[in-house]
Protein backbone atom coordinates (compact mmCIF):
# COMPACT_ATOMS: atom_id res chain seq x y z
CA UNK A 1 0.00 0.00 0.00
CA UNK A 2 1.30 3.44 -0.78
CA UNK A 3 1.93 6.28 1.63
CA UNK A 4 1.75 10.02 1.00
CA UNK A 5 4.09 12.68 2.36
CA UNK A 6 4.02 16.48 2.27
CA UNK A 7 7.64 17.53 1.94
CA UNK A 8 9.75 20.67 1.73
CA UNK A 9 13.01 18.80 1.22
CA UNK A 10 14.36 19.75 4.65
CA UNK A 11 15.92 17.43 7.21
CA UNK A 12 12.65 17.62 9.13
CA UNK A 13 10.86 16.29 6.03
CA UNK A 14 13.42 13.49 5.65
CA UNK A 15 12.80 12.55 9.26
CA UNK A 16 9.08 12.36 8.48
CA UNK A 17 9.92 10.24 5.41
CA UNK A 18 11.88 7.83 7.61
CA UNK A 19 8.76 7.12 9.69
CA UNK A 20 6.42 7.24 6.66
CA UNK A 21 8.23 4.28 5.05
CA UNK A 22 7.03 2.06 7.92
CA UNK A 23 3.44 2.52 6.77
CA UNK A 24 3.80 1.27 3.20
CA UNK A 25 5.57 1.35 -0.10
CA UNK A 26 6.04 3.29 -2.31
CA UNK A 27 5.98 6.74 -0.72
CA UNK A 28 4.51 9.49 -2.93
CA UNK A 29 5.40 13.12 -2.31
CA UNK A 30 3.54 16.40 -2.68
CA UNK A 31 5.81 19.43 -2.33
CA UNK A 32 5.09 22.30 0.02
CA UNK A 33 5.57 24.76 -2.87
CA UNK A 34 3.05 22.97 -5.13
CA UNK A 35 0.88 26.07 -4.76
CA UNK A 36 2.81 29.34 -4.70
CA UNK A 37 2.39 31.66 -2.94
CA UNK A 38 1.55 29.46 0.03
CA UNK A 39 -2.15 28.63 0.28
CA UNK A 40 -2.67 26.02 3.01
CA UNK A 41 -6.26 25.04 2.16
CA UNK A 42 -5.17 24.35 -1.43
CA UNK A 43 -2.40 22.04 -0.27
CA UNK A 44 -4.83 20.25 2.03
CA UNK A 45 -7.29 19.86 -0.88
CA UNK A 46 -4.57 18.41 -3.09
CA UNK A 47 -3.36 16.03 -0.38
CA UNK A 48 -6.91 14.82 0.19
CA UNK A 49 -7.48 14.07 -3.50
CA UNK A 50 -4.09 12.43 -3.98
CA UNK A 51 -4.51 10.32 -0.83
CA UNK A 52 -7.91 9.14 -2.08
CA UNK A 53 -6.61 8.31 -5.57
CA UNK A 54 -3.62 6.40 -4.19
CA UNK A 55 -5.73 4.89 -1.42
CA UNK A 56 -2.81 5.96 0.78
CA UNK A 57 -2.36 4.03 4.00
CA UNK A 58 -1.25 7.16 5.83
CA UNK A 59 -0.25 10.79 5.23
CA UNK A 60 2.89 12.27 6.81
CA UNK A 61 4.50 15.71 7.12
CA UNK A 62 7.18 17.35 9.24
CA UNK A 63 5.90 18.90 12.46
CA UNK A 64 6.93 22.38 11.36
CA UNK A 65 4.52 25.32 11.56
CA UNK A 66 3.50 24.76 7.95
CA UNK A 67 3.47 20.97 8.15
CA UNK A 68 1.20 21.03 11.20
CA UNK A 69 -1.02 23.68 9.68
CA UNK A 70 -1.63 21.92 6.36
CA UNK A 71 -2.14 18.55 8.04
CA UNK A 72 -4.68 20.02 10.48
CA UNK A 73 -6.58 21.42 7.50
CA UNK A 74 -6.44 18.02 5.80
CA UNK A 75 -7.69 16.39 9.03
CA UNK A 76 -10.57 18.86 9.30
CA UNK A 77 -11.74 18.42 5.70
CA UNK A 78 -11.29 14.65 5.69
CA UNK A 79 -12.93 14.22 9.10
CA UNK A 80 -9.95 12.32 10.47
CA UNK A 81 -7.92 12.59 13.68
CA UNK A 82 -4.41 14.07 13.52
CA UNK A 83 -1.43 13.19 15.69
CA UNK A 84 1.00 16.14 15.71
CA UNK A 85 4.68 16.08 16.62
CA UNK A 86 5.24 12.34 16.84
CA UNK A 87 8.69 10.91 17.56
CA UNK A 88 7.88 7.21 17.02
CA UNK A 89 5.06 5.37 15.24
CA UNK A 90 4.05 1.74 14.75
CA UNK A 91 1.44 0.88 12.10
CA UNK A 92 -1.58 -1.11 13.21
CA UNK A 93 -5.24 -0.78 14.11
CA UNK A 94 -4.96 1.36 16.11
CA UNK A 95 -1.55 2.81 15.24
CA UNK A 96 0.67 3.17 18.31
CA UNK A 97 2.68 6.34 18.63
CA UNK A 98 4.78 8.51 20.88
CA UNK A 99 4.33 12.25 20.62
CA UNK A 100 5.62 15.42 22.27
CA UNK A 101 3.65 17.40 24.81
CA UNK A 102 4.61 20.62 26.54
CA UNK A 103 7.03 21.51 23.75
CA UNK A 104 8.95 18.26 24.38
CA UNK A 105 8.98 18.35 28.20
CA UNK A 106 6.67 15.33 28.26
CA UNK A 107 6.23 12.27 26.05
CA UNK A 108 2.78 10.85 25.39
CA UNK A 109 2.09 7.26 24.39
CA UNK A 110 -1.10 7.26 22.35
CA UNK A 111 -3.28 5.16 20.08
CA UNK A 112 -4.54 6.62 16.83
CA UNK A 113 -7.85 5.08 15.75
CA UNK A 114 -8.11 6.05 12.12
CA UNK A 115 -8.63 4.42 8.74
CA UNK A 116 -5.89 6.74 7.43
CA UNK A 117 -3.42 7.94 10.06
CA UNK A 118 -2.44 11.60 9.63
CA UNK A 119 0.88 12.13 11.35
CA UNK A 120 3.39 14.94 11.70
CA UNK A 121 6.89 14.17 12.93
CA UNK A 122 8.56 16.45 15.47
CA UNK A 123 11.69 18.01 13.93
CA UNK A 124 15.11 16.87 15.22
CA UNK A 125 13.75 13.81 17.03
CA UNK A 126 14.23 10.99 14.51
CA UNK A 127 17.48 9.74 12.91
CA UNK A 128 17.24 9.91 9.15
CA UNK A 129 17.43 6.46 7.55
CA UNK A 130 18.32 5.98 3.90
CA UNK A 131 15.76 4.24 1.72
CA UNK A 132 13.91 4.50 -1.57
CA UNK A 133 13.26 8.11 -2.57
CA UNK A 134 9.61 9.16 -2.77
CA UNK A 135 7.84 9.44 -6.11
CA UNK A 136 6.82 13.02 -6.90
CA UNK A 137 3.10 13.39 -7.56
CA UNK A 138 2.26 15.38 -10.68
CA UNK A 139 0.05 18.00 -9.06
CA UNK A 140 -0.65 20.19 -12.13
CA UNK A 141 -4.04 18.56 -12.71
CA UNK A 142 -5.09 19.14 -9.10
CA UNK A 143 -3.81 22.72 -9.02
CA UNK A 144 -5.89 23.54 -12.12
CA UNK A 145 -9.05 22.26 -10.50
CA UNK A 146 -8.65 24.05 -7.19
CA UNK A 147 -11.82 25.53 -5.77
CA UNK A 148 -11.84 29.30 -5.29
CA UNK A 149 -12.62 28.84 -1.60
CA UNK A 150 -9.38 26.95 -1.14
CA UNK A 151 -7.46 29.98 -2.41
CA UNK A 152 -9.10 32.44 -0.02
CA UNK A 153 -6.32 32.06 2.58
CA UNK A 154 -3.20 32.88 0.64
CA UNK A 155 0.04 34.66 1.53
CA UNK A 156 -0.17 37.90 -0.42
CA UNK A 157 2.83 39.81 0.90
CA UNK A 158 5.94 39.43 3.02
CA UNK A 159 7.42 41.62 5.73
CA UNK A 160 11.21 41.30 6.12
CA UNK A 161 12.59 40.74 9.62
CA UNK A 162 13.35 43.89 11.59
CA UNK A 163 16.78 45.21 12.59
CA UNK A 164 20.17 43.71 11.76
CA UNK A 165 20.96 42.33 15.22
CA UNK A 166 22.27 38.78 15.77
CA UNK A 167 19.41 36.35 15.21
CA UNK A 168 18.50 33.99 18.05
CA UNK A 169 17.86 31.10 15.69
CA UNK A 170 21.31 31.22 14.08
CA UNK A 171 23.47 32.64 16.90
CA UNK A 172 26.52 30.61 17.99
CA UNK A 173 26.37 32.18 21.42
CA UNK A 174 23.35 33.49 23.30
CA UNK A 175 23.54 35.50 26.51
CA UNK A 176 20.13 35.27 28.09
CA UNK A 177 18.62 36.96 31.13
CA UNK A 178 15.77 36.02 33.44
CA UNK A 179 13.85 37.51 36.31
CA UNK A 180 17.14 37.70 38.24
CA UNK A 181 18.29 40.53 35.97
CA UNK A 182 15.83 42.64 37.93
CA UNK A 183 14.84 45.37 35.45
CA UNK A 184 14.89 46.58 31.87
CA UNK A 185 18.04 48.59 32.64
CA UNK A 186 19.64 45.53 34.22
CA UNK A 187 20.06 44.10 30.71
CA UNK A 188 22.86 46.58 29.99
CA UNK A 189 25.47 44.15 31.38
CA UNK A 190 23.92 41.28 29.39
CA UNK A 191 24.04 43.37 26.21
CA UNK A 192 27.63 44.40 26.87
CA UNK A 193 28.82 40.79 27.21
CA UNK A 194 26.74 39.73 24.19
CA UNK A 195 28.24 42.55 22.13
CA UNK A 196 31.74 41.44 23.02
CA UNK A 197 30.99 37.82 22.05
CA UNK A 198 29.02 38.64 18.90
CA UNK A 199 26.17 36.89 20.67
CA UNK A 200 22.41 37.30 20.52
CA UNK A 201 20.56 38.53 23.60
CA UNK A 202 17.82 36.23 24.84
CA UNK A 203 15.47 36.21 27.79
CA UNK A 204 12.87 34.16 29.64
CA UNK A 205 9.10 34.52 29.55
CA UNK A 206 9.06 36.29 32.92
CA UNK A 207 11.13 39.06 31.32
CA UNK A 208 8.86 39.62 28.29
CA UNK A 209 5.74 39.43 30.47
CA UNK A 210 7.25 42.21 32.62
CA UNK A 211 7.85 44.26 29.45
CA UNK A 212 11.63 44.45 29.96
CA UNK A 213 12.44 42.95 26.54
CA UNK A 214 10.46 42.43 23.32
CA UNK A 215 8.88 39.03 22.75
CA UNK A 216 11.24 38.48 19.81
CA UNK A 217 14.03 37.97 22.40
CA UNK A 218 12.13 35.25 24.26
CA UNK A 219 13.60 31.76 24.30
CA UNK A 220 11.24 28.89 25.14
CA UNK A 221 8.15 26.89 24.30
CA UNK A 222 6.16 29.95 23.26
CA UNK A 223 9.20 31.94 22.14
CA UNK A 224 12.13 30.97 19.94
CA UNK A 225 13.74 27.52 19.97
CA UNK A 226 17.51 27.93 19.83
CA UNK A 227 20.55 25.78 18.99
CA UNK A 228 23.73 27.73 19.89
CA UNK A 229 27.19 26.32 20.69
CA UNK A 230 26.96 28.02 24.07
CA UNK A 231 23.89 29.27 25.93
CA UNK A 232 24.64 31.50 28.90
CA UNK A 233 21.62 31.69 31.19
CA UNK A 234 21.85 34.54 33.69
CA UNK A 235 19.36 34.59 36.54
CA UNK A 236 16.94 32.22 34.79
CA UNK A 237 15.26 29.66 37.06
CA UNK A 238 14.68 27.17 34.25
CA UNK A 239 10.94 26.47 34.13
CA UNK A 240 9.92 23.77 31.64
CA UNK A 241 8.54 26.56 29.44
CA UNK A 242 12.11 27.88 29.06
CA UNK A 243 13.88 24.51 28.86
CA UNK A 244 11.62 23.50 25.94
CA UNK A 245 13.45 26.12 23.86
CA UNK A 246 16.93 24.88 24.81
CA UNK A 247 16.83 21.32 23.52
CA UNK A 248 19.16 22.18 20.64
CA UNK A 249 21.78 24.04 22.75
CA UNK A 250 25.18 22.28 22.74
CA UNK A 251 26.47 23.68 26.04
CA UNK A 252 24.49 25.44 28.73
CA UNK A 253 26.22 27.64 31.27
CA UNK A 254 23.96 28.73 34.13
CA UNK A 255 24.74 31.69 36.35
CA UNK A 256 22.42 31.87 39.34
CA UNK A 257 22.55 32.74 43.02
CA UNK A 258 20.36 29.71 43.79
CA UNK A 259 22.35 26.50 43.23
CA UNK A 260 19.09 24.50 43.39
CA UNK A 261 17.40 26.39 40.53
CA UNK A 262 16.21 23.86 37.92
CA UNK A 263 18.45 25.41 35.28
CA UNK A 264 21.50 24.99 37.53
CA UNK A 265 20.63 21.28 37.77
CA UNK A 266 20.06 20.92 34.01
CA UNK A 267 23.10 22.88 32.82
CA UNK A 268 26.50 21.60 31.68
CA UNK A 269 28.39 24.28 33.62
CA UNK A 270 27.39 26.46 36.53
CA UNK A 271 28.59 29.54 38.30
CA UNK A 272 26.94 30.16 41.65
CA UNK A 273 26.63 33.83 42.40
CA UNK A 274 24.94 37.14 41.71
CA UNK A 275 24.84 37.73 37.96
CA UNK A 276 25.38 41.43 38.60
CA UNK A 277 28.89 40.55 39.78
CA UNK A 278 29.60 37.51 37.63
CA UNK A 279 28.58 38.92 34.21
CA UNK A 280 30.69 42.13 34.45
CA UNK A 281 33.61 40.01 35.72
CA UNK A 282 33.40 37.79 32.60
CA UNK A 283 33.25 40.89 30.40
CA UNK A 284 36.31 42.35 32.16
CA UNK A 285 38.21 39.07 31.85
CA UNK A 286 37.58 38.90 28.09
CA UNK A 287 38.70 42.55 27.71
CA UNK A 288 41.84 41.81 29.72
CA UNK A 289 42.81 38.94 27.43
CA UNK A 290 42.18 40.65 24.09
Amino acid at each position, binding site marked *: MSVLILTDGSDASRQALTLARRFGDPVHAVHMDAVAPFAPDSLAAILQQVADELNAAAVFAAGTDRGNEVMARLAARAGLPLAANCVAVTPGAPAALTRLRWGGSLLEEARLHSPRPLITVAPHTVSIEEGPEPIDVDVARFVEELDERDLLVRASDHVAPQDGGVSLTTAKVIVSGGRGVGSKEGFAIIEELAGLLGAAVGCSRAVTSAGWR*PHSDQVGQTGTKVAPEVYIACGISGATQHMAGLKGAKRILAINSDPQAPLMLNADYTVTGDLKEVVP*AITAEIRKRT
Partner: protein
Amino acid sequence: MRISACIKRVPITGGRILLTEDARAINTQHLGFTMSPHEECGVEEAVRLIEANKGDSVVLTLGPREAVEQLRDAMALGVDRGIHLQTDGREWDGEATATALVDAIRADEADHGRFDIIFFGNESADSGGFQVGIRVAYALGRACVTGLKKVTLQGASVRCEQEVEAGRDVYVVPLPAVLTVKEGLNLPRYPSVPGRMRARSKPVSVVTPIRPDPRLELVSLAVPAGQGRRAESLGSGAAAAPAVVELLRKAGVL
Protein backbone atom coordinates in the same frame (compact mmCIF):
# COMPACT_ATOMS: atom_id res chain seq x y z
CA MET B 1 -18.82 43.81 16.38
CA ARG B 2 -18.69 40.43 18.12
CA ILE B 3 -15.46 38.71 19.08
CA SER B 4 -14.81 35.49 20.92
CA ALA B 5 -11.70 33.84 22.30
CA CYS B 6 -11.28 30.16 23.11
CA ILE B 7 -8.92 29.23 25.93
CA LYS B 8 -7.67 26.15 27.78
CA ARG B 9 -6.87 25.68 31.46
CA VAL B 10 -3.34 24.31 31.92
CA PRO B 11 -1.13 23.82 34.98
CA ILE B 12 1.83 26.11 35.64
CA THR B 13 4.46 23.38 35.53
CA GLY B 14 7.44 25.20 37.04
CA GLY B 15 10.80 23.46 36.94
CA ARG B 16 10.05 19.76 37.12
CA ILE B 17 6.98 17.87 35.98
CA LEU B 18 5.64 15.15 38.30
CA LEU B 19 3.10 12.64 37.03
CA THR B 20 0.16 10.98 38.77
CA GLU B 21 0.60 7.36 39.89
CA ASP B 22 -1.16 5.97 36.82
CA ALA B 23 1.07 8.19 34.62
CA ARG B 24 -1.94 9.47 32.70
CA ALA B 25 -1.78 13.08 33.88
CA ILE B 26 0.44 15.66 35.53
CA ASN B 27 0.29 15.63 39.31
CA THR B 28 -1.16 19.09 39.86
CA GLN B 29 -1.61 18.81 43.62
CA HIS B 30 0.86 21.62 44.27
CA LEU B 31 0.50 23.56 41.04
CA GLY B 32 -1.36 26.70 40.06
CA PHE B 33 -3.27 26.99 36.80
CA THR B 34 -3.43 29.48 33.97
CA MET B 35 -4.66 29.75 30.41
CA SER B 36 -2.19 28.74 27.66
CA PRO B 37 0.17 31.66 26.87
CA HIS B 38 -0.80 32.05 23.20
CA GLU B 39 -4.48 32.24 24.21
CA GLU B 40 -3.84 35.00 26.71
CA CYS B 41 -2.83 37.12 23.72
CA GLY B 42 -6.03 36.09 21.92
CA VAL B 43 -8.06 37.31 24.88
CA GLU B 44 -6.13 40.60 25.04
CA GLU B 45 -6.64 41.17 21.31
CA ALA B 46 -10.38 40.47 21.64
CA VAL B 47 -10.64 43.03 24.45
CA ARG B 48 -8.68 45.66 22.47
CA LEU B 49 -10.85 45.17 19.37
CA ILE B 50 -14.06 45.61 21.37
CA GLU B 51 -12.64 48.65 23.19
CA ALA B 52 -11.85 50.23 19.82
CA ASN B 53 -14.95 49.16 17.88
CA LYS B 54 -17.68 48.57 20.50
CA GLY B 55 -19.69 45.39 20.64
CA ASP B 56 -19.45 42.34 22.80
CA SER B 57 -16.90 39.69 23.61
CA VAL B 58 -17.27 36.11 24.79
CA VAL B 59 -14.69 33.68 26.17
CA LEU B 60 -15.18 29.93 25.80
CA THR B 61 -13.41 27.03 27.42
CA LEU B 62 -13.82 23.28 27.53
CA GLY B 63 -12.61 21.89 30.82
CA PRO B 64 -13.39 20.79 34.35
CA ARG B 65 -15.51 22.73 36.83
CA GLU B 66 -12.40 24.63 37.99
CA ALA B 67 -11.79 26.03 34.49
CA VAL B 68 -14.28 28.74 35.41
CA GLU B 69 -11.23 30.37 37.08
CA GLN B 70 -9.65 30.90 33.66
CA LEU B 71 -12.96 32.27 32.30
CA ARG B 72 -12.94 34.75 35.21
CA ASP B 73 -9.30 35.63 34.41
CA ALA B 74 -10.31 36.46 30.84
CA MET B 75 -13.29 38.48 32.04
CA ALA B 76 -11.00 40.33 34.46
CA LEU B 77 -9.05 41.48 31.39
CA GLY B 78 -12.30 42.86 29.95
CA VAL B 79 -14.22 40.08 28.19
CA ASP B 80 -17.97 40.50 28.73
CA ARG B 81 -19.12 36.95 29.46
CA GLY B 82 -18.15 33.31 29.46
CA ILE B 83 -19.36 29.97 28.13
CA HIS B 84 -18.12 26.94 30.03
CA LEU B 85 -18.22 23.57 28.28
CA GLN B 86 -17.92 21.59 31.45
CA THR B 87 -16.23 18.18 31.52
CA ASP B 88 -15.48 15.58 34.17
CA GLY B 89 -11.78 16.38 33.89
CA ARG B 90 -10.86 13.58 31.47
CA GLU B 91 -8.76 14.34 28.41
CA TRP B 92 -10.62 15.41 25.25
CA ASP B 93 -8.80 15.08 21.93
CA GLY B 94 -8.63 17.96 19.46
CA GLU B 95 -11.34 16.57 17.23
CA ALA B 96 -13.90 16.19 20.05
CA THR B 97 -12.97 19.57 21.54
CA ALA B 98 -13.55 21.29 18.21
CA THR B 99 -16.92 19.58 17.69
CA ALA B 100 -18.16 20.67 21.13
CA LEU B 101 -16.93 24.24 20.58
CA VAL B 102 -18.66 24.43 17.20
CA ASP B 103 -21.98 23.43 18.82
CA ALA B 104 -21.56 26.06 21.54
CA ILE B 105 -20.56 28.77 19.05
CA ARG B 106 -23.49 27.98 16.76
CA ALA B 107 -25.91 28.13 19.70
CA ASP B 108 -24.52 31.49 20.85
CA GLU B 109 -24.56 32.91 17.32
CA ALA B 110 -28.20 31.82 16.84
CA ASP B 111 -29.15 34.01 19.81
CA HIS B 112 -26.73 36.93 19.52
CA GLY B 113 -25.44 37.09 15.95
CA ARG B 114 -22.29 35.99 14.21
CA PHE B 115 -18.81 36.42 15.67
CA ASP B 116 -16.68 38.55 13.37
CA ILE B 117 -13.52 36.96 14.74
CA ILE B 118 -12.94 33.85 16.85
CA PHE B 119 -9.47 33.76 18.41
CA PHE B 120 -7.59 30.60 19.32
CA GLY B 121 -4.04 29.98 20.49
CA ASN B 122 -1.89 28.47 17.73
CA GLU B 123 -1.47 25.40 19.94
CA SER B 124 -2.20 24.59 23.56
CA ALA B 125 0.70 24.56 26.02
CA ASP B 126 -0.03 21.03 27.22
CA SER B 127 -1.30 18.69 24.49
CA GLY B 128 -0.05 20.80 21.57
CA GLY B 129 -2.39 19.34 18.93
CA PHE B 130 -2.13 22.32 16.51
CA GLN B 131 -5.66 21.76 15.21
CA VAL B 132 -8.66 22.92 17.25
CA GLY B 133 -8.95 26.41 15.70
CA ILE B 134 -8.54 25.06 12.18
CA ARG B 135 -11.20 22.39 12.76
CA VAL B 136 -13.66 24.95 14.13
CA ALA B 137 -13.05 27.24 11.15
CA TYR B 138 -13.60 24.42 8.73
CA ALA B 139 -16.85 23.31 10.39
CA LEU B 140 -18.16 26.89 10.33
CA GLY B 141 -17.00 27.42 6.74
CA ARG B 142 -14.81 30.41 7.66
CA ALA B 143 -11.34 31.47 6.63
CA CYS B 144 -8.61 30.58 9.11
CA VAL B 145 -5.12 32.08 9.37
CA THR B 146 -2.65 30.60 11.85
CA GLY B 147 0.40 31.55 13.91
CA LEU B 148 -0.33 35.29 13.94
CA LYS B 149 1.85 38.00 15.47
CA LYS B 150 -0.20 40.96 14.23
CA VAL B 151 -3.89 41.48 13.45
CA THR B 152 -5.33 44.66 11.86
CA LEU B 153 -8.96 45.28 10.90
CA GLN B 154 -9.43 46.67 7.40
CA GLY B 155 -13.15 47.30 6.93
CA ALA B 156 -14.82 43.96 6.25
CA SER B 157 -11.44 42.19 6.10
CA VAL B 158 -8.62 41.47 8.49
CA ARG B 159 -4.92 41.78 7.69
CA CYS B 160 -2.84 39.12 9.40
CA GLU B 161 0.92 38.76 9.88
CA GLN B 162 2.08 35.19 10.30
CA GLU B 163 5.48 34.43 11.77
CA VAL B 164 7.68 32.50 9.32
CA GLU B 165 11.39 31.68 9.36
CA ALA B 166 12.57 34.92 7.80
CA GLY B 167 10.11 37.62 8.70
CA ARG B 168 6.36 37.48 8.31
CA ASP B 169 3.88 36.45 5.63
CA VAL B 170 0.84 38.67 5.20
CA TYR B 171 -2.69 37.39 4.59
CA VAL B 172 -5.84 39.44 4.05
CA VAL B 173 -9.05 37.50 4.57
CA PRO B 174 -12.72 38.51 4.75
CA LEU B 175 -14.66 38.49 8.02
CA PRO B 176 -15.97 36.41 9.66
CA ALA B 177 -12.70 34.61 10.31
CA VAL B 178 -10.98 32.30 12.76
CA LEU B 179 -7.51 33.47 13.78
CA THR B 180 -4.96 31.42 15.71
CA VAL B 181 -2.39 33.59 17.45
CA LYS B 182 1.00 33.31 19.09
CA GLU B 183 2.47 34.92 22.16
CA GLY B 184 4.07 38.21 21.17
CA LEU B 185 0.94 39.34 19.28
CA ASN B 186 0.56 41.87 22.09
CA LEU B 187 1.58 42.29 25.72
CA PRO B 188 -1.49 41.23 27.74
CA ARG B 189 -2.47 43.76 30.39
CA TYR B 190 -2.28 42.88 34.06
CA PRO B 191 -5.83 42.48 35.42
CA SER B 192 -6.79 45.40 37.66
CA VAL B 193 -8.47 44.91 41.02
CA PRO B 194 -11.73 46.54 39.79
CA GLY B 195 -11.44 44.30 36.70
CA ARG B 196 -11.27 41.26 38.94
CA MET B 197 -14.22 42.49 41.01
CA ARG B 198 -16.32 43.07 37.90
CA ALA B 199 -15.38 39.64 36.52
CA ARG B 200 -16.99 37.96 39.53
CA SER B 201 -20.45 39.13 38.53
CA LYS B 202 -20.16 38.68 34.76
CA PRO B 203 -22.38 35.91 33.39
CA VAL B 204 -21.03 32.42 32.67
CA SER B 205 -23.33 29.95 30.98
CA VAL B 206 -22.60 26.26 31.43
CA VAL B 207 -23.19 23.45 28.96
CA THR B 208 -22.17 19.83 29.45
CA PRO B 209 -21.23 18.24 26.13
CA ILE B 210 -20.97 14.46 25.90
CA ARG B 211 -17.42 13.17 25.48
CA PRO B 212 -17.04 10.83 22.51
CA ASP B 213 -14.38 8.11 22.58
CA PRO B 214 -11.18 9.89 21.54
CA ARG B 215 -9.71 8.80 18.23
CA LEU B 216 -6.33 10.11 19.40
CA GLU B 217 -6.30 8.24 22.68
CA LEU B 218 -3.83 9.08 25.43
CA VAL B 219 -2.38 5.89 26.93
CA SER B 220 0.29 7.22 29.27
CA LEU B 221 2.76 10.03 29.86
CA ALA B 222 6.47 9.94 30.60
CA VAL B 223 9.10 12.49 31.52
CA PRO B 224 11.86 12.12 28.90
CA ALA B 225 15.24 10.99 30.12
CA GLY B 226 17.56 13.95 30.72
CA GLN B 227 20.05 14.89 28.05
CA GLY B 228 22.84 13.52 30.20
CA ARG B 229 23.83 16.96 31.42
CA ARG B 230 25.77 16.81 34.65
CA ALA B 231 26.60 20.27 35.74
CA GLU B 232 30.25 21.03 36.29
CA SER B 233 30.80 23.92 38.68
CA LEU B 234 33.11 26.63 37.38
CA GLY B 235 33.16 28.27 40.79
CA SER B 236 31.38 31.05 42.62
CA GLY B 237 30.99 34.75 42.04
CA ALA B 238 33.37 36.96 40.09
CA ALA B 239 36.24 34.56 40.78
CA ALA B 240 34.72 32.13 38.27
CA ALA B 241 35.27 34.55 35.34
CA PRO B 242 38.61 33.07 34.12
CA ALA B 243 37.11 29.55 34.04
CA VAL B 244 34.11 30.88 32.04
CA VAL B 245 36.40 32.56 29.52
CA GLU B 246 38.41 29.35 29.21
CA LEU B 247 35.16 27.47 28.50
CA LEU B 248 34.20 29.98 25.79
CA ARG B 249 37.64 29.62 24.25
CA LYS B 250 37.43 25.81 24.24
CA ALA B 251 33.96 25.97 22.69
CA GLY B 252 35.50 28.00 19.85
CA VAL B 253 33.27 31.02 20.31
CA LEU B 254 35.92 33.45 21.55
